[in-house]
């Protein structure tokens, strides 16, 4: 599903983040990218989203070289991703409206998709994520958890096959975070999504990632992958394997930072 080949990347006038970096992820896998602040993990996500382009090497998603955002990739950020002037309902509609705006051109929207019954699609996501009561509220009026639910609904309403999440639960309180982690895992399984979730929290990586990509100090040259069998399911939290994964990830982080 995802292939990075010989990828190099640096922001203008900044030290290099990735040098000749190669990594791949299979379809349907759930990956966590774990690393400290400033290690380039968000940049990696933006490269996967086609929002940044590598200075050399290539990013392939579904076999195709990525040159711009891909219609079947969904992206959810920590915060500030919703239109503050649009209601929850209008925010969820946004992606579908954009598809209608451009038509099935293969660049902005999948070539094979005809958007029909937008209202029904939006309604069913509002209901599914429990957003009915706040459908007509603005993002500034609802809780952080509800905002992230809105972002998830907006993204999944477009039927992505790859979901990229950048610290999506970092600003939430513990019960809301757990609730949304469970929801993410449930939706991923249900829809057969490939997931790449960026986090700085060891516990979150150990819970959501079937495999964890550990990033230390840049520049990154070789992928450091830790397998986490059983990860990616809500039940994993209560198993000894989860505790072991946390311990392994903690020591991996200590080694690389």
């Amino acid at each position, binding site marked *: 599903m995802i292939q990075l080949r010989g990828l190099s990347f640096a922001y203008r006038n900044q030290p290099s983040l990735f040098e000749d970096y190669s990594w791949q992820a299979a379809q349907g896998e759930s990956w966590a990218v774990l690393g400290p602040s400033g290690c380039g993990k968000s940049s990696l996500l933006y490269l996967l989203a086609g929002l940044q382009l590598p200075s050399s090497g290539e990013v392939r998603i579904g076999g195709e070289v990525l040159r711009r955002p891909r219609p079947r990739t969904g992206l959810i950020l920590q915060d500030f991703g919703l239109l503050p002037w649009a209601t929850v309902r209008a925010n969820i509609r946004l992606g579908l409206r954009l598809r209608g705006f451009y038509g099935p051109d293969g660049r*902005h929207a999948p070539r094979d998709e005809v958007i029909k019954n937008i209202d029904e699609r939006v309604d069913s996501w509002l209901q599914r994520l429990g957003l009915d009561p706040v459908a007509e509220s603005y993002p500034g009026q609802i809780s952080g958890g509800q905002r992230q639910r809105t972002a998830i609904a907006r993204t999944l309403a477009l039927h992505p096959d790859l979901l990229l999440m950048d610290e999506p639960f970092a600003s939430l309180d513990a019960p809301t975070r757990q609730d949304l982690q469970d929801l993410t895992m449930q939706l991923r399984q249900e829809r057969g999504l490939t997931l790449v979730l960026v986090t700085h929290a060891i516990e979150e990586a150990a819970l959501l990632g079937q495999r964890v990509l550990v990033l230390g100090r840049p520049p990154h040259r070789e992928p450091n992958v830790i397998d986490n069998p059983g990860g990616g399911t809500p039940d994993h939290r209560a198993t000894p394997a989860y505790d072991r994964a946390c311990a392994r990830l903690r020591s991996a982080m200590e080694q690389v930072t």
Partner: protein
Amino acid sequence: MRRRAILLAALVLVLLWALLAAVIHRPILPSPFEVLWITIRELPGELGGHLLVSLWRVVASTALAVLAAVPLGIVLGQSARADRWFSPFVYLLFPIPKVVLLPVLLLFFGIGDLTKIAVIFLILFFQILVLVRDQAAGLRPELLFSVRSLGAGRRGLFRFVYLPAVVPAILTGLRQSIGTAVAVLYVAELFATQQGLGYYIYLHGSTLFDYPRMYAGVIAMSLLGLGLYLVVDAAQRRLCRWQYTA
């Protein structure tokens, strides 16, 4: 409640005026009731005609200013490079009191409506341009990334992000400059025209010495400014509801 407070304030001002007129007791300050009566009587006639001409000039220049300043402001807000090139010009031109350009505009555009529209256009254009540019430049990159990831290209971002994002800036710009625009319109209508409230006020005040009519013109001009302000205010409440509810 708000509306009632405004009406009450208007009533107090009228009473103060009446008191002042009674104390001064000279033709240059007629009673407000006489003036109001003339205003009401004249509005469907001559005064109304002049009011419509002035209204047309303000509305046309406002529309042109919005149409020109919004796309340019968005472009400058999006592109740091374009802004680097353009902002020194804005920096130099923005603080110039545009009313001093009136004689120049008069020479170029002649005595028709165009001169009046052009001078108000210049006032509104810079005000809106600067506010729209700052608002567009201040959009969070996370928001733009998210919407781009939903499939938006340049056109989509313009339509679904930048345009709605700058609506508050447009309305703020209009609100801040509508008073100045009407004031400058008055000055502009003193020159080379026989239409508009500026001309009407000047004619009755300085030529015919018909002070009640002159005051009726002043009231009509005030109503024009107030009316436009209320329209912008209402638009802001309606279009920027999210800012009031957060």
